[in-house]
């Protein structure tokens, strides 16, 4: 500390202000440069590229909005949008419901609270690649899932629903996406639980004490106090879950390859984007997909904000 003393103690207020300013800019410089070049600036570059026929060697021809009109008329891209929306429509409520349910249970006065909290978050710490390969193993025709349902006598029910004993869940186009929904409800509900738990801690105990005096039951507490007072939590969890769902990619490409097999059942928007860029080198088209995705994410965030009437927590 003594090293710096001669300069600063002798300096006037003006020069101290100046050195504070310089220190501020110096300390934020590198992150800001990286953000401007590789992050914020990319929106404009992506928009620019999307207006061209842009191949592996760069711009070939100015197209205007042709990439966008091509995309919107492409049945595979339409399927990618439908698949993504279907996935989001199911996985978001599932993750919210399971996350809320776990949070409320773990938040009670129970033994082993820390253990259960850690256990429920456990699947979220593994890599998407490891957990998807593990899931593919579990769901293969001879895997754990089919073996367990046979062993506990559930096969008549599954047969009635039209699933044979050796159903290949991830390679059947009618069950592939639902399986991925199951996978991500399993891995990510723990994260949603942690979010809900931190919002539960913001509800004051006095509200419950007042309700106890009124003789409110556990369910009444939940229905009339916990659930409505968690509104900011619902907004936050819904937003995080939805943004994640619209960007789902890892599980789809690991289970279904860049073709989104079987029969494009797993072709989601980001998979389509990756395929156009990295496999087909149609960068103009891929950039247009990115812009459309950005617009969709942005629109949904705005709709959610209106629905919940709440500013985001960040």
């Amino acid at each position, binding site marked *: *500390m003594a090293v*710096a*003393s*001669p300069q*600063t103690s002798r300096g006037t207020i003006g020069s101290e*202000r100046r050195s*504070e*300013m310089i220190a*501020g*800019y110096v*300390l*934020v410089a*590198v*992150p800001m440069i990286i953000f401007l070049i590789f*992050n*914020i600036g*990319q*929106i404009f*570059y992506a928009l620019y590229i999307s207006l061209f026929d842009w191949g592996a060697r760069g711009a070939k021809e100015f197209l205007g909005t042709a990439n966008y009109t091509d995309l919107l008329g492409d049945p595979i891209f339409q399927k990618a949008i439908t698949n993504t929306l279907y996935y989001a429509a199911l996985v978001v409520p599932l993750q919210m419901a399971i996350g809320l349910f*776990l949070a409320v249970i773990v938040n009670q*006065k*129970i033994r082993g609270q820390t*253990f259960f909290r*850690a*256990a429920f978050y456990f*699947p979220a*710490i*593994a*890599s*998407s*690649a*490891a957990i998807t*390969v*593990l899931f593919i193993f579990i769901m293969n025709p001879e895997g754990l899932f089919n073996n*367990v349902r046979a062993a506990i006598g559930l096969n008549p029910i599954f047969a009635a629903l039209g699933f044979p004993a050796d159903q290949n869940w991830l390679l059947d186009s009618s069950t592939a996406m639902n399986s991925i929904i199951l996978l991500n409800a*399993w891995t990510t509900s723990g994260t949603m639980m942690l*979010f809900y738990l931190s919002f539960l801690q913001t509800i004051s105990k006095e509200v*419950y004490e007042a*309700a106890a*005096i*009124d*003789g*409110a*039951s556990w369910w009444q507490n939940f229905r009339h106090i916990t659930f409505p007072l968690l509104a900011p939590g619902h907004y936050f969890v819904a937003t995080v879950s939805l943004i994640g769902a619209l*960007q789902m990619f*890892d599980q789809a*490409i*690991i289970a279904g*390859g860049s073709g989104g097999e079987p029969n494009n059942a797993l072709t989601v928007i980001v998979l389509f*984007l*990756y395929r156009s*860029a*990295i496999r087909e080198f149609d960068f103009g088209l891929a*950039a247009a997909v*990115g812009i459309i*995705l950005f617009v969709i*994410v*942005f629109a949904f965030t705005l709709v959610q904000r209106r629905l919940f009437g709440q500013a985001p*927590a*960040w």
Partner: protein
Amino acid sequence: MTTQATVQPKASAADSAAPVGDRSARLRLILAYVLLIGYALLMFVPFAWSVATSFKTRADAAQLTFIPDPVSLTGWNAAFNDLDPAIPVLFFNSFLIAGIVTVTNLVLGSMAGYAFARLRFPGREILFLLVLGTMMIPDQLRLVPVYQILRTLGLLGGNAQYIGVIVILAIAAPSIFLLRQYFMSIPVALEEAAKLDGAGFYTTFWRIILPLATPALAAVAILSFQGTWNGFFWPSVILQERDNWTLPLGLWQFNDLYNANWPALMAVVVMATLPIVVLYVFFQRYFIEGVAAASVKG
């Protein structure tokens, strides 16, 4: 809420005020434990199954028995000898990239976090909004332009691919945000005392602020390491040559190539997951605090 209270005030008042001893409360507690333990098993069993399967033979892997019979190392042998790139290469790449990205996030994140928390300079608020704004931009929107820039810079081939991935992941907005929040919670009095002793901004940052912020630094280190170790999207875009692959990319390809060689695949799954599990066992608090900090503070 109040209508029922008038019907049987005593019983239900006891219900929520003194949960222990009450019959319905006890029942609820038992139900809660059954659910908790059942759900916890659902979390662990698949992982335990992958460990068990890695020691099975290929025929045994299709059986609904947990204990391998016979215990076999063929899966581990295949994982170590038949894969290309070899497991040590994948580990080296994953450690190299995750290690460097962790260090850059700590260094750049704490510097910027301190400036945003404590130093006054024109444009500070706008710059900080810009930092938060980066979280609104989907990574996928950046795929094409980032790919173009990295190719122009010659960072898409050979060992330069490492630099490509590292530059993209070098600093994440949550690292800055988390550290800024923590720095703001440190009492200013400490810095004022140091200032009276003649310490400058850099000295205060290095000697006073950083040592007090170890919990936040640990949380950022763990989140960065885990996120990068597990990362899939950017590596799958940038690391096109197999010698530079990380463990998740290796797993992706092996799953296609060694289809149904479950013991070998599960051995790789176990190896890829183990380092993070070890971190989780020892530093569980920081994992959970890091996630929670992202939600409420703001």
